[in-house]
């Protein structure tokens, strides 16, 4: 497949950029933060995104989506990264809808994907249990009880948890923490008895939840896929999620870089603009080179999702590791090159480094994915 965007994709990219730079900017994020908004995003803006089809962009047409594929979603997420736009696009659309599509039966897809595409339901994945991403170490338990399962355990860092209508809880029906087999995905209504939720705000001003499950009764009909056999679909979903997040990091890093270069052309010291200093020029040029590599690996990984490339796991970890590295460098350089003003809350550049680190760590950071990339490369 040619590594290039077609006309339709270029138009989508432009329309997403146009919408977000008007409706969901860093200034909007600041306002949400300063009002300690529990929703963590504007419902009106989300409904407008839904109207444009973004909630169903990667969902098949038969389930109410656009069937536009993940390259399309990735282009939107890149613009989301540029504007630091807060919405359920990551938690519900990129992650939860993908996992339902991967593991669910046709009737489950009908039941959940259509309302997601219509902006009527929000769903979030409840996977992580400790401070680091380690899906195979899941210890939450599900025990068969008649026609139902009883779920117990604790989940952390559940994205947009306080607004979710349902969670996809990953729990163990067999095996021990560390086994890839024995994991099962349950669709659990947020209102179910036995779930306790507490909300935390993270450094990027987004909300995550800690879930405590105590003998939560879930009908067997709400199991996604085979009991004990969630790993493959979960793993593919995490690959897709990481590529989507890499796309967001690409937009974020590019924007932070462009703002920094603009500042280098404007800020004067020693009687001249600081962008004329070679010490800064070379650092900027090196970063430009890294951003170009980042753009290429993200596009290759997005296309690999849509083409069913069997190299997907390797490309997902490659894209995430590369973008973690580049986002870290771009956001650190952004602060340093802005100097003192970059340290102030009043200036917007600080929002980029905060969001960058959270996205970098979500579903595996640089170290996790570089290790996985090496393993998948055979060493």
């Amino acid at each position: 497949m040619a590594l290039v965007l077609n006309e339709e994709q270029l138009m989508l990219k432009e329309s997403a950029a146009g919408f977000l730079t008007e409706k969901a900017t860093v200034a909007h994020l600041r306002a949400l933060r300063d009002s300690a908004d529990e929703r963590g995003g504007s419902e009106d803006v989300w409904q407008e995104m839904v109207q444009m089809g973004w909630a169903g962009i990667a969902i098949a047409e038969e389930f109410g989506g656009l069937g536009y594929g993940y390259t399309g979603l990735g282009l939107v997420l890149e613009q989301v990264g540029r504007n630091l736009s807060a919405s359920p696009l990551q938690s519900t659309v990129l992650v939860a809808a993908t996992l339902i599509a991967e593991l669910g039966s046709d009737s489950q897809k009908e039941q959940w994907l259509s309302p997601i595409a219509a902006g009527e339901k929000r769903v979030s994945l409840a996977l992580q249990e400790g401070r680091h991403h380690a899906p195979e170490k899941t210890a939450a338990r599900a025990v068969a009880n008649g026609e139902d399962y009883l779920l117990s355990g604790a989940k952390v860092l559940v994205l947009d948890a306080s607004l979710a209508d349902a969670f996809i809880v990953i729990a163990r029906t067999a095996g021990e923490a560390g086994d890839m087999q024995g994991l099962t995905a349950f669709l659990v209504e947020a209102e179910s008895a036995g779930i306790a939720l507490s909300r935390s705000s993270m450094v990027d001003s987004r909300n995550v939840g800690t879930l405590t499950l105590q003998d939560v009764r879930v009908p067997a009909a709400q199991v996604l896929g085979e009991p004990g056999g969630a790993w493959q679909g979960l793993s593919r979903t995490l690959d897709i999620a990481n590529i989507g997040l890499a796309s967001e990091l690409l937009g974020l890093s590019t924007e932070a870089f462009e703002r920094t270069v603009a500042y280098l052309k404007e800020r004067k010291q020693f009687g001249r603009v600081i962008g004329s200093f070679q010490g800064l020029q070379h650092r900027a040029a090196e970063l430009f080179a890294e951003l170009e590599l980042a753009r290429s690996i993200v596009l290759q990984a997005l296309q690999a999702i849509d083409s069913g490339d069997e190299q997907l796991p390797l490309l997902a970890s490659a894209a995430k590791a590369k973008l973690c590295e580049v986002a870290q460098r771009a956001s650190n350089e952004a602060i340093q090159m802005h100097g003192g003003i970059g340290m102030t809350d009043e200036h917007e550049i600080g929002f980029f480094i905060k969001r960058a680190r959270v996205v970098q760590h979500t579903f595996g950071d640089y170290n996790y994915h570089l290790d996985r990339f090496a393993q998948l490369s055979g060493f």
Partner: protein
Amino acid sequence: MSDIEQFRQETRAWLEENCPVAMREPVRGFDDLYNGGRNPEIDHPDQKVWCDRMAQRGWTVPHWPKEYGGGGLDKDELKVLREEMRRITARSPLDSFGISMLGPALLHFGTEEQKLEHLPRIVRGEIRWCQGYSEPNAGSDLASLATRADDQGDHYLINGQKVWTSYADKSDWIFCLVRTDNSGSKHEGISFVLFDMDQPGVEARPIKLISGSSPFCETFFDNARAEKKNLIGEEGNGWTIAKYLLTHEREMISSFGAPPKKSVGKLALESFGADASGRLANSILRPTIAQYQLDTLAFGATMARVGDEAKAGQGLGAASSIFKYYGTELNKRRNELNLAVGGEFALGWEGEAYRDGAISRDWLRSKGNSIEGGTSEVQLNIVAKRVLGLPDA
């Protein structure tokens, strides 16, 4: 049968009949490449046979127009020829700076007479060309070159010195940047001339590199003669041609970083072994190798993306400006890893035990990649100024 299918069948039959068996062996090193010239270095007699046969059809440079001796093939035919050559693992019949560097400049800037004079001899491998650009005091700052060309009516007299002239001691002619005018800015007054190296006023002395090889020379001109009919483009317009050619050269050098057959990670496994989890049993070196392989993958994707964007009519993106810089830096990283993985054996120099220093010599040679054809620092200056629009100091 379609025309292209017929072309394929004819090409296949012709190659089968005409490509000598020895020329279907893999290329092991520079010695196996045939460079042509008046006194060609011949490692195997079939090199010249193969070159002559291909040249008769213009297939040493199959994409050049027929009127200049080329094959006149269109894109589809060119693809078929390459595929059919690969099918029988046929070697390239002729590798020369005439083909890769001077030819494109002549096609772009030369007069009809100049093209007819020089291009067919490049196609036939009769003349081996070298490039006279750098001087002792004009390296990164190439435009400050001082080699003089004095107007003598129908010819110029050339005086001065070039350095880093690749294979000047083995070449027949030189394409050379000379100063024809000192009055304007340093970029003005530079001219691009061609002249014969086989004359009393020209001397080429090989330079021995830290790698032990001598691919470059210092070249001295003492009243050397260049005919005016061999001035390419207008007098004083040589800088434009020089920049055009530098782009070609940079593309060539950046491709040195193309990934070799065996990944560093696999070589490291052979060297260090694996731990119980299957990971490389050197946990300190492993992430450095992984980062190198990651960057190699992303760099390959970038070259593909820029090519595909150009094909889709989206123009040659700014990304192409990083190729020379990034490709050569990657190649240096690869060579450092070869030492880390190869251990002290990799530092051998002579003697069969350590392959006559194959690894250490390549490692040393790679240091030049980020110097020749524009240093990494100059490449970063270009990105900063032309792409990012940052101002001069």
